[in-house]
């Protein structure tokens, strides 16, 4: 979309105005995420830049909020022995981080495995009531989380699963499955079904066909679906508010009460770490995308 040489001044003016407008929109998108990073090094307990920070005074910056992540809630933060064990077991943020990863990984395993299986079934042309079933399977993404959380709470209370890890993992696994279905069916659209028939004609069992022929080809979709499922669980807070006891608090839950009750820049330090995690996930996804484009013989873009 470069400017043609015959463009008049009006066109030139619009061309540059449009780019400036787009630049401002991108600024709107990215500024809030970037801004938390310098603010998290603030030495003062405020959410705003101090004059010392603006003049780049080294004394205005500190790592105290990062240290707070490790020490807040510890039994004895000044102890010389057993500091790490104490921090690992008692620091609130570390505990919630462990919970988040544990719940997220377990939920991802469940939703990715049964979601992939279902996506393979859904992409077969023989599948009966395909659209209706697809609509049903995607609905956890659409139904407002408050309703999902309320339902899970009421039903899981009856089964004794409220306030347990199992309950949280199951509820999060449900929320992750639509993403797995969407990404895996998208990869299966270009899948050549005759490969499956070829494998079967040469005597491969369905099991072997799936793992040796189909799985390697749809793996990029499965991995990105798994990443989506993981981030869904990792970022989810409404169900956690309803379903988790203090013991199962996750990072978003801890942040939620942090923002409501005692707002401290520790939240910004945690936010910075989370931004780093999402950058890592995004980079992984991009690598997978490029790899699969290369494998399909497209020139990487």
């Amino acid at each position: 979309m470069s400017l043609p040489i015959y463009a008049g001044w009006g066109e030139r003016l619009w061309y540059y105005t449009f780019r400036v407008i787009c630049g401002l929109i991108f600024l709107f998108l990215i500024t809030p995420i970037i801004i938390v990073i310098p603010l998290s090094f603030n030495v003062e307990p405020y959410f705003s830049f101090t004059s010392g920070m603006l003049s780049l005074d080294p004394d205005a910056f500190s790592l105290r909020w990062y240290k707070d992540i490790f020490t807040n809630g510890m039994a004895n933060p000044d102890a010389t022995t057993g500091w790490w064990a104490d921090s690992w077991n008692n620091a609130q943020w570390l505990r919630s981080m462990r919970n988040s990863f544990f719940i997220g990984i377990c939920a991802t395993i469940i939703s990715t495995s049964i979601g992939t299986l279902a996506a393979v079934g859904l992409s077969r042309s023989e599948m009966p009531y395909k659209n209706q079933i697809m609509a049903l399977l995607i609905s956890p993404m659409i139904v407002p989380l408050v309703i999902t959380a309320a339902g899970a709470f009421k039903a899981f209370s009856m089964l004794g699963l409220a306030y347990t890890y199992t309950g949280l993992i199951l509820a999060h696994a449900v929320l992750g499955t639509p993403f797995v279905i969407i990404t895996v069916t998208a990869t299966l659209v270009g899948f050549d079904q005759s490969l499956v028939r070829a494998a079967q004609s040469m005597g491969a069992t369905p099991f072997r066909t799936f793992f040796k022929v189909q799985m390697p080809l749809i793996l990029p979709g499965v991995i990105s679906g798994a990443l989506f499922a993981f981030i869904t669980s990792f970022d989810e807070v409404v169900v956690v508010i309803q379903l988790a006891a203090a013991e199962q608090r996750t990072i978003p839950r801890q942040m939620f009460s942090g923002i409501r009750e005692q707002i401290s820049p520790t939240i910004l330090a945690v936010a910075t770490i989370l931004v780093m995690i999402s950058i890592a996930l995004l980079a992984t996804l991009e690598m997978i995308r490029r790899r699969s484009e290369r494998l399909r013989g497209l020139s990487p873009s």
Partner: protein
Amino acid sequence: MSQTADKQPVLAADGTPLKQALDAALFRNRMRAFMLVLPLLLFLFVTFIIPIGIFLSFGIHDPVFSKFMPKTSAVLSDWDTTSEPTEDMYAALVADMVVARKDKTIGRAATRVNRELSGTRSLFTSSARKAAKLEAPFKESLVAVKKQWADPEVWKAMKVASRSWTLGYYANALDYKQVADGSFEPQPENRQIHVPLLVKTLWISLQVTLYCLILGYPIAYLMSNLPARTSNLLMILVLLPFWTSILVRTTAWIAMLQSQGVLNDLFVLFGVTDDDNRYSMIYNKLGTLIAMTHILLPFMVLPLYSVMRGIPPSYVRAAKSMGATNWTAFSRIYAPQTIPGIGAGAILVFIVAIGYYITPALVGGQDGQMISNVIAFHMKSSLNWSLAAALGGVLLVVVMTLYWIYDRVVGIDNMKLG
């Protein structure tokens, strides 16, 4: 073909008619495909659909009063709501109150009636304390304890509460009220809160959708017209917020918008406002709108971008070659082709916005609250699960209608992520 061949069915290798064998094979294939989906379907039923059904059932089923006040409920069902309450009814009420006081369930029954007629909770609890000592005739003795017991309105409220299967909560969610004879009448003007709330939720969602479209359209257009390498770099600026936690983004907006925040500091620095008159941009509706637009913008950009990428540039060039101005070429040729993307993005943003909870709860203040927040309030604070379920039912109907439209317009299998 000969006459005999028409009558004789074609046989498969094992001697069964071919049509039948083929049907059986197709059926087996269908079953095989279905078996792959079955685990997820079962999982979804057990952990998602049945739980939501259980939750929604609270909206039409509330057995609290009839469970804890069984005798009263029985006599109330025969009462015609217009005649004077009889001695039998008073006797049943006193008998129930004695038992309920002993079982410590009187509070729950009283709360139920209080929802129909406020101020009756203390009437129940205080009378129940004296109920054991009351003697016949119960009508006189109970009225002597509290003269409100002679008021037919209290009895009408109990009659409404005694129905365990009720549409009363749905009526309440739509600002109607079920009265004792079972009919519905509008709530008094000053108590009509739920319909305005729903309208406000829809209005906020609509505004967010519109802002997302206004902001999303130009950048999707720019990215789809740039070389792939540049547009992929710009895409990172869209995807990074998409992948970042909603809590992080909400926190970031608090840091940006609060009165001592980054934006207000900039305004003061540039003299837009002075230090004493900082703008309040958060903990109100404006804060909800800004933060939600930021959070939902990627949901608009991604479908728009994927549609715009597929529009051949030659159409616009052809229009221009035939003398169309830039604006005509855009509005008559390009823009109509982006309508599928606008539809997909707008419905998606609207659906997600309507059920939004976290952002309004954190930055919405008083006037930025949406229907999900009120549902959560009734579940956690007022403990009125039945009203929460009725409001949830209304919300679910709205969302499911939009979902159906989305399926019609866009098709669920066209949903793409990233």
